[in-house]
Every structure is written in structure tokens, then in C-alpha cells.
């Protein structure tokens, strides 16, 4: 088993890239520190202490409230971005991403890809570690420089000198270890699992296995949801068709970005307009080819909206993709401007999809690639197909 671990810092901090390089403290709903930037750590600010205490320790720190929904959404997007790099990935909101590279034909490419995509996603270089298991890979990454990979072959030898606090046990268990004179992972590894289990319970057995590099924990694989949607509420309600088209285009862009990250396409599409009087106008379609680009999605949604006659103002628009399937990987830039804006370099898939949709509406014969048949024929109509 070969595991690559990428550390980006807590995703709550990644929501504010503009504060990188400054001390930042994120407080949770209970008034405790949820995450602190590296610049705040020298002031003894660490997760778990009260926010008031953190303010006192580091007055110059920027205090932020946690946004678990946004952090989780970022976690999902990062997971979707890494999804095709390894058979099994796990991403945590604490800013830890693992990739199981077992069986990957080119692990170095996957690692490079992960570094690149994480850098784009969070705006800074991740720290990377490669080791036989998740625990040792994480500790290796923590000791790597930003943008660098620390590779470990002998996990036990690497872990031996590290302090026992890396086991992430609670305070009471750490105190017991200290009383037992076990201050390094090497010392813990030398103890028999049953012996430490008798002192600390199951956590003790687990601690010994971790310290020996035996990795009892498996990754929890991330699975992409097979349903996605986007919606917008209008306040005040909207009846203008151009406004609806404008918002629909933006929603299709968001959905396309998400689909592209997953390499998925929508086989079914549903648009729902919630009217001011509570009525719902909906339209649904199953498509022949999976739709995945913004242009494809909006091509269908836009044509529906143009043909609609809303009788009352619209308060909410939902665009739902209830059935997703693999649509092949497309080259997309994470969180960046769409490459098609350069002109002429429009995504070939989008042009092909536009032609296919046109053929679906008007017949296959309306689109052709001219090819020579009898170029020297004296009859002009025979020269080209």
C-alpha cells in the first residue's frame, strides 16, 4: 500500500486566501478555536482553546466565524478534483487529502496532479508525504516544505523519533503515556499492543500499531453524489425572460464546473420555476448524449425558458440533474476563467455537442464534413460529398 497525503491547512482558512501570511483564527459556534493559521501558532493559539483566550494571546489575528457549509462544499469540490487521480481518495475539512496510489500506473503523475489541483483550489502549495500508510504519510507531509514531497520507505524508522502527541490521543491518555515513560513513537512501538490496551483501552492497541507503521486504519473512500442541482431565489420576484435566461446561464455554469470536476455528464435534466402564487412550472428531458458543458446545459435550459410564458412572477429557479453518468474526462481549469474565452479555441466537445443537438432537431443530413469523392469529375455535383 502506498498512500500520498496532502496537507493544505484547514479549509475554513482556505475560504479567505487574501489573509494568507497573516495570523487568522476561526472560531466555531461554541466559542472555541476551530482552526488557526500557521502565523498564529507561535502565539500559543491552537485549536480547542477559547476564542477569547486566542484574542488575548494574538491580538493582531483576524477573527473569522466558521462556515461549515462553505468548508464542506470546498471539501466536496477538492474531492471531485482529485477523484480521477487515484482509485480511492479521502478528503477532510481539516485540510487533509489522502490518495491511495496502489495500482496506479504512474503515481508520480498523480502526485503532481494533486499538487497542482490543490494549489489551484486553496491558493497555496500543499505539503506532500508518501508513505506505506495514511498515518505515516500524514506525518511525513507535515514535515515536508510547501510544494515538496517527503517520501518514506521505512515507516517504523521514520516514526520512531516522533513525539507521542502525534497519536492525537486525549489529554488523559497522553498523561498516562507520560507516566509510563512513553514519550516517543519508538517507545510506544516497543510496547506490546495487548499491554498498552490494558492501560488505554482499544486506543492503546491502535497506538502501538500506528507507531509500528502497521496502519490499522483504512481510508474512507469519497464517492461523488449522483445527483446535483443548483438554484437561485429572486427577491423581488422576476417575470422578465432575459433576467431568467441570465440567471439560468450562471446556474448552468456552476453545474458544468461541478460536472467537469467529476468527469460526469447529465443524462436527465429538469428545470423548475416556482411562481409567486406557489404554482410550479417544470420541464424535464432525457438526453441521448450526456450533457456536461455550460453551453450544452444552457442550450437546453435556454430553449425551454425562451418557449415558456410565465404568467406570474418567478420566485425561485431550480436546475436539477437527477441522473448523472461518466462522461469522460475533460480538461477544465479549476476555478479559473474558461479557456474558451480566447476565441477559436472553443472546446471541441462543445462545438461537436452543438452540432449533434442541431442534428437531433433537424436530421443527420443537415451537418456534413465535405470529403472528395471524384474531384476530377466533369460533373460538379459528383466531386464532393
Amino acid at each position, binding site marked *: 500500500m502506498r498512500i500520498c497525503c496532502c496537507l493544505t491547512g484547514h479549509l475554513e482558512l482556505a475560504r479567505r486566501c487574501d489573509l494568507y501570511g497573516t495570523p487568522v483564527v476561526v472560531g466555531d459556534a461554541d466559542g472555541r478555536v476551530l482552526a488557526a493559521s500557521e502565523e498564529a501558532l507561535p502565539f500559543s493559539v491552537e485549536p480547542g482553546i477559547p476564542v477569547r483566550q486566542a484574542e488575548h494571546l494574538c491580538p493582531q489575528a483576524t477573527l473569522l466565524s466558521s462556515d461549515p457549509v462553505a468548508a464542506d462544499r470546498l471539501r466536496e469540490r477538492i474531492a471531485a478534483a482529485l477523484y480521477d487521480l487515484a482509485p480511492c481518495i479521502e478528503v477532510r475539512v481539516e485540510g487533509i487529502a489522502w490518495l491511495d496510489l496502489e495500482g496506479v500506473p504512474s503515481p508520480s503523475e498523480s502526485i503532481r496532479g494533486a499538487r497542482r489541483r490543490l494549489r489551484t483550489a486553496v491558493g497555496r502549495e500543499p505539503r506532500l508525504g508518501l508513505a506505506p500508510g495514511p498515518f505515516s504519510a500524514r506525518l511525513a507531509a507535515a514535515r515536508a516544505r510547501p510544494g515538496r514531497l517527503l517520501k518514506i520507505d521505512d515507516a517504523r524508522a521514520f516514526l520512531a523519533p516522533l513525539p507521542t502527541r502525534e497519536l492525537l490521543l486525549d489529554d488523559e491518555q497522553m498523561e498516562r503515556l507520560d507516566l509510563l515513560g512513553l514519550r516517543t513513537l519508538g517507545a510506544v512501538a516497543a510496547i506490546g499492543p495487548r499491554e498498552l490496551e490494558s492501560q488505554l483501552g482499544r486506543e492503546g492497541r491502535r497506538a502501538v500499531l500506528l507507531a509500528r507503521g502497521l496502519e490499522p486504519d483504512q481510508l474512507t473512500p469519497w464517492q461523488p453524489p449522483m445527483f446535483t442541482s443548483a438554484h437561485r431565489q429572486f427577491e423581488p420576484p422576476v417575470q422578465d425572460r432575459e*433576467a431568467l435566461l*441570465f*440567471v439560468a446561464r*450562471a446556474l448552468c455554469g456552476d453545474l458544468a464546473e461541478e460536472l467537469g470536476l467529476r468527469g460526469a455528464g447529465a443524462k436527465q435534466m429538469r428545470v423548475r420555476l416556482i411562481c409567486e402564487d406557489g404554482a410550479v412550472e417544470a420541464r424535464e428531458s432525457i438526453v441521448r448524449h450526456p450533457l456536461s458543458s455550460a*453551453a450544452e446545459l444552457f*442550450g437546453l435550459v435556454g430553449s425551454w425558458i425562451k418557449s415558456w410564458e410565465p404568467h406570474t412572477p418567478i420566485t425561485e429557479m431550480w436546475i436539477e440533474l437527477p441522473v448523472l453518468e461518466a462522461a469522460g474526462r475533460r480538461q477544465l481549469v479549476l476555478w479559473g476563467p474558461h479557456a*474558451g*474565452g*480566447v*476565441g*477559436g*479555441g*472553443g*472546446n*471541441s466537445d*462543445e*462545438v461537436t*455537442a*452543438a*452540432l449533434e*443537438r*442541431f442534428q437531433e*432537431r*433537424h*436530421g443527420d*443530413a*443537415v*451537418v*456534413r*464534413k*465535405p*470529403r*472528395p469523392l471524384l*474531384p*476530377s469529375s*466533369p460533373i*460538379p455535383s459528383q*466531386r*464532393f460529398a
Partner: protein
Amino acid sequence: MQVHARPLGGKTETLDHAIEAIRVRFGSQALTRVAELPPPLPWPSGTPLDRLTGIGGLPRGRLTLLTGTGTCGKLTLALALLAQATQEFAHAAVIDHARQFDPWAMLPFDPDLGSLTVITPPSAEAAGEAASALARAGTGFILLMGEIPEPWLAPMEAGAARSSAVVVGVVDAPGRALAHASSLSIGFTQAGWIYERGQLVGVNVGAHCSKNKLAPPVGESDLEIFYAIGSIAPPHRSGEVRKGRQLSALAQQLDVECVSAAV
């Protein structure tokens, strides 16, 4: 959506407030002042038209019209543009509602047929739909062989502006809507036939900018278009470009470059 604001005192403030409210509600890209729009990037086509546009090429993201009646060379130039586009862009499309496009006529310009797609819509409405969809999808170059209905002009323009596609229309005399939608309109007029050894071998053509929203007008160009005599093989002088004669005293006064395209 473009907005022109005239200094009318209190009305300007009201307009500014409305613009700000729309931007807050729908995003900053919902409205753009004309002065904020970036100038269109030119596409150097390698044809004499580059000199007439004032920006060194055809405008990306805008509609260019080639107009003129009779045998005046507009389609010849359009096919030369199309052939060049097939070499430079991944996708070039011809929307041929009237079913008059002949790929054989492009051969003297050495096109890359692998990049070319011909769309023959069953109706003018379908032609407009195809133009709009392809412009939006990012087709590099679109040649319209004929007019498209007015309702499709705005979507096509918006799609082309978004994707920076080069859109060229070839019409004898554009309707008001199409003329208004174009950013550049070049008129071709036949100035006389070219005879060599008693044989009609080509046509003299004058090309002038009748509309230019991109740059000040830069004068006129005289062209010599040679057509194959006979029926079958592409002409032996295919792709020839040479300096032509000074045609008149007026031509001497203008910054004239006479070029020939053997077709």
C-alpha cells in the same frame, strides 16, 4: 447589455442608480458600459481585407459583412478567408441555407477540410439557430452564405462576442437588421472584366469599407480576381497573388495595393 449614459443632470444619477441596482442583483457582468468594453482582437486573415479594416485583420467576436451584386469577388474573398480559417482554427463552419457552397471552389486556397463543417439548414430559422449555437460553442470561424432572421442576430452576436468567433456574412444587399448588426461592412463593386488575348480571364473589383465601427476608414482597395477558363481542373495559377496595375489616376492618389487572387 450595453448602456450609453448622456449627461442629463438628474437623469444621469437615476440611470447610474438603476445600473448599480441591476449589477448588485444580477452580478457585475449584467451590464457593461460601452466605454468599458475591450476593443475586439483582430484576426489577421492574410487577405487584402486586413488593410481595409483599420485594425489589421477581421474582428473577432463581431459580424463582418461582404456585400455587392453580380460577379464582384465577395465570395472569392470569403472562401479565401474560410480556407485560411481551416488552417488556423480547430473548427470552421459554413452555414449554407441555399445549398450553394462548393468545397471544390476552395481548393485553390489550400484548405484543411478536416476542420471544415458544412451545415445546410432546412429553413432560414434553422440557419439562425445554427449560427447562434455554433458562435456560442466557440467555433473559430463561421461563414454565413446568406441572411439569417432578425431574432437570431442578437444571440449570434452575443455568442460570438463571448467566444471571440470570427463571423463573416456574404450577401448581395443586406437587410436593415443584418446591416445594423454588423461591425464591419465591406462593399465590392465590379469595375470591369479582365481580358487576356481576347479571353475573359477575370474581373476588376473595387473594395471599400461602407461601415466600420472598429476604426476610422482607411480608403479603398482594387482587386483583380482571376477565374479559371474551362471547366474541370482547378486553375494552374491557383493561389497566385501578384501586384496589379495602377488602374486610374484616382487609384494613384489612393493608397492602393492591387492584388490578384487566381481562383
